[in-house]
């Protein structure tokens, strides 16, 4: 692998030293990727891994997505008895829908007019990955992690979520073995909707607690030409 064949002696200006911080190979792989590739090559050569194994694991990691969480929320909106079971034991209730929660337990916290819930992991990036997939980058950012426990209302406002003054906020710091799912309030104007229809209003952000679900009007509005032909 040729990564370093040009002459540095002519390029000693601070500008070029700065450029050197980003190390790429010919394929454009950043340093971290190069190290992972090198480690993987060694493990394959030593027979610890087979070549396809890493790809399969990555696929497994990336397979879950927000659609799983959305199905759970929609079902809870649709079926009050299911909602009760979900609030009591999230993992078992998910299993009823053939959704496997890989973590020890899924704690479902319900938004009401009196209290809004928002989830953060101050220490790292604990997240209900088995039902929401990988967390968004802002969830892992130091700013979100530090500020959501200290000034949740200000953080929510930056997401465009302005709560009524008489709605209390409960911040859940996900630090250990539990994982948290916010059950948002069912949007009004969805009476008679099926689970499938309801699930389309459930967004990732609404299940973390930084947004409300989509409104039925926005969802049902005919698509504009720009949306159909982006």
């Amino acid at each position, binding site marked *: 692998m040729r990564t370093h064949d040009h002459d540095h002696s002519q390029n000693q200006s601070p500008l070029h030293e700065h450029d050197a911080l980003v190390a790429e190979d010919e394929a454009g792989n950043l340093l971290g990727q190069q190290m992972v590739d090198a480690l993987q090559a060694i493990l394959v050569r030593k027979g610890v891994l087979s070549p396809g194994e890493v790809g399969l694991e990555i696929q497994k990691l990336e397979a879950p997505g927000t659609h799983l969480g959305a199905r759970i929320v929609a079902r809870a909106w649709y079926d009050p008895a299911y909602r009760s079971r979900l609030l009591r034991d999230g993992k078992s209730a998910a299993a009823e829908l053939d959704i496997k929660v890989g973590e*020890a*337990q899924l*704690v479902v916290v319900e938004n009401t007019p*009196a*209290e809004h819930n928002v989830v953060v992991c*101050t*220490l790292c990036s604990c997240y209900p990955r088995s039902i929401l997939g990988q967390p968004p980058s802002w969830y892992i950012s130091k700013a979100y992690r530090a500020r959501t*426990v*200290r000034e*949740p*209302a200000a953080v929510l406002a930056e997401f465009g979520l302005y709560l009524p*003054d*008489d*709605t*209390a*906020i*409960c*911040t*859940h*710091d*996900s*630090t*250990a*073995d*539990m994982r948290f799912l916010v059950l948002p309030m069912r949007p009004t104007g969805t009476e008679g909707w099926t689970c499938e229809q309801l699930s389309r209003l459930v967004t990732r952000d609404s299940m973390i607690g930084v947004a409300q679900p989509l409104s039925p009007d926005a969802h049902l509005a005919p698509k504009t030409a720009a949306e159909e032909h982006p």
Partner: protein
Amino acid sequence: MDRRPVPPAITPPATARPFGPRFDIGDLVRVIDLRKPGHVRTPDYVIGHLGEVIQRCGLFLNPEDLSVGITHGPVVALYRVRFPMAELWGGPARHPRDTLCIELYDHWLEPVDKVTR
């Protein structure tokens, strides 16, 4: 709270039994400062503060042990504990019922007498 300089780690108090949940829902607890280095799952901002146990989550291997390869236990009880925001950060909170709920392992908690608090 300024916790530096950090003195050497101290052993947990004798009340911190590794087995079985000591606390029940509704119990008041204070988060103690074990000053443990390593893979600690108790963030600084709750240390020293008074909260209420709202859920018993079960028994889990201690992540402080797991991080250094001790996988045989003992297990420790995990709780969800709720703190008023004003308790954590001082000053009037945005809303008197604004709270923070966090998971804490048994050995980081000490009982608080409801009467003498």
